[in-house]
């Protein structure tokens, strides 16, 4: 397989696994974070459609991030599960400490910590490390992203 094809195939597989791990964690009550719902409400207020659209958005985002992983693998001239896992840690840190906390500024339906109760924006903001979605949320997100990176690194490097 060419490098491009390997990125597309293994990037997609790893993203599906990441999505499944996050969804499974939510179903197992380890966290309330439902990434497809969170992303889908960027484009629709409808709960059911949001989960579907959000799934699509998450898969697209996963492909973009896996492209960044692959770029790093190419730059370092090697790819392995531990290297991928390391990148997964950085990825999780980025999502938890930068991406999610800044979401209320751009999400059209997300409330802010300071908004008036009569404000029409109704989605609960994630808070620091997304702790508003449950105290185990950072751990779950970290584990899922490390698994994503490790899997991508192992498969891409094989």
């Amino acid at each position, binding site marked *: 397989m060419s490098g491009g094809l390997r990125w597309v195939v293994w990037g997609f597989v790893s993203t599906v696994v990441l999505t499944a791990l996050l969804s499974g964690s939510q179903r197992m009550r380890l966290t309330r974070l439902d990434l497809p719902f969170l992303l889908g409400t960027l484009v629709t207020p409808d709960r059911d459609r949001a989960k579907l659209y959000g799934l699509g958005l998450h898969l697209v985002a996963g492909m973009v991030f896996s492209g960044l992983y692959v770029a790093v693998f190419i730059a370092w001239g090697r790819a392995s599960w531990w290297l991928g896992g390391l990148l997964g840690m950085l990825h999780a840190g980025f999502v938890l400490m930068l991406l999610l906390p800044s979401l209320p500024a751009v999400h059209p339906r997300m409330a802010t910590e300071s908004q008036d*109760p009569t404000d029409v924006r109704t*989605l609960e903001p*994630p808070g620091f490390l997304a702790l508003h979605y449950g105290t185990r949320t950072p751990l779950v997100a970290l584990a899922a992203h490390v698994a994503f990176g490790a899997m991508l690194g192992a498969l891409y490097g094989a």
Partner: protein
Amino acid sequence: MRPARIQDHAVIGDGHSAALVSRDGGVVWLCWPRFDSPSLFAAILDAEAGGGFWLSPEAPARVSREYLPDTNVLRTRFETDDGVLVVTDLMPIHDTRGGETQPERELLRCVHCERGEVTLLARYAPRPDFGRARPSLRDGGRLGWRLEHAGWLYTLLTDVPLTPASEGELRGRARLRSGARAHFSLTMTDVGPAVLPPLGRRAWERVDHTAMTWRRWAARCRYDGPYREAVVRSALALKLLTFGPSGAVVAAATTSLPEVPGGASNWDYRFCWVRDASFTARAFLGLGYEAEAESFVTWLLRATWLTQPRMSVLYDVYGRNRPDEEEVPGLRGYAGSRPVRVGNAAATQQQLDSYGEVIDAVAQLIRHGGALARDELRMLLRLGEYIMKMWDAPDEGIWEPRGGRWPHTFSRLSCWMALDRLLELHGRGAFRGLRVPAEHLRGVREQLWEELRTRAWNRQLRSYVRILDGDDVDADLLLMAWYGFEDACSERMRCTDQRIVTRLGARGGLLFRNEDDLRAGEGAFGICGFWRVVLLARQEGAGRDAAERLFVQQLAHANDLGLLAEEVAPETGDALGNFPQALSHVGLISAALELEATRPWQGALGGPGEEARP
């Protein structure tokens, strides 16, 4: 302190879950996210440990309440010496066309000072998992008060300042002048981000939208007789007890409200009983709610699919077997009625009458133009084969006592009905090329007929009896005419009716189910009085007039909002058992429909008229 009477509660809901609201402004029962989930508020079962959510004026008040017309939106009016406070309670039906994301579940309480100046007291004491958990409440500032338990987040948003009063409890106080409003929105979710619905004007928009949606649904009711108000209320109650995603109808919104005050007959009714199928389908179809009937029958066939040809007595709203039953020792029970039970072990009983109920429900749907898939038709035939094998086995019977198996007349009657309906469907060509053992069906039906005519009839007593060769009667025998086994005007039916009234009758036209209930000190059973109305309505002349009078008597046993419990204590008129009870409301609807169907033309013009209106 004497607890509020069962009939002093109102019910609100959203087709997933239901809450009971007491006259003193307390939400004293709420299970989220589904009817059969653990409770968040269970003060009705234990004022201390159960938890609740109270809104009321500080000063003593005269209380009146009503549903907004043709809705399940409750309005409680507190009239104090200084002013009038109105609390509007509902579980909103959200407008999906709007630009707002809807919360998974919401309990909305809107307060309005109608006149004068009133001090509002608020007390919020959530106790998840039947009071077994007491997690701490966190102040999320403008994002509301948060409580997390077992992966679920409960958020209370309000514009009234609340402060922690004791562990796991918030209290607030607000002085409201005429025209002032206050809002409380309690939501629950296991999804992050949670949706935090807006308050203020947007909260009242949800009230309006919910009321409009319920009114639109109620307007589809085809019944146009003199008891329309009671019938529509019953239809609304039935719809509240219907689980929207599956079409299943739970028997009641509660668990463990006692059949005997202070006693141990406390059962969990937050499940769907197969034996209620025929009655429920008939009620929905009779009122013109064909989609609800079809959805319910489809759920029924799906639920029984995995266990066929043997059926469980009850299933949960998703059609899963729920044989587990546990006691909750931490709750003292309503008026000390212990134990409080969660789950229902009756699920594993053998109740042969269930088979007849399912097949009759399907037959009714097909009569109304419904169609079944080939697999479902095959399943019906398998049920028929099972009945042909099992009809003479003893069973626990329709009332599911836990005292062993007996040859119940009613179970035989239901088996007879099942075979009769299968043959009817065969005659209509419903089985489309499937092999139907018609001769065998006919043969067993004749055997059942013979056995019921001989062994279920007691010559000395001149009545049909509850158990073959026995000498007790049971109110379920009133259904012999309804099921088409006996003519309502036949000598045997009239004698049986009289014997039932003599032995089981109580004040106010009430009927006990059987002599066991009398011995146990239980109340009279809600639906039995309505069954008798149906029987009398089919007897021409004096019988029909008596039916009309009896029906009006039965209506008097509903509470001020038109809601019925499972049972009524004849001496006090107090409601007993789980509340509100779907089967009692199904009985009311069936009886009203029967009175309409048998109303003489003259009667329709000048019959009971306005005077008979409840």
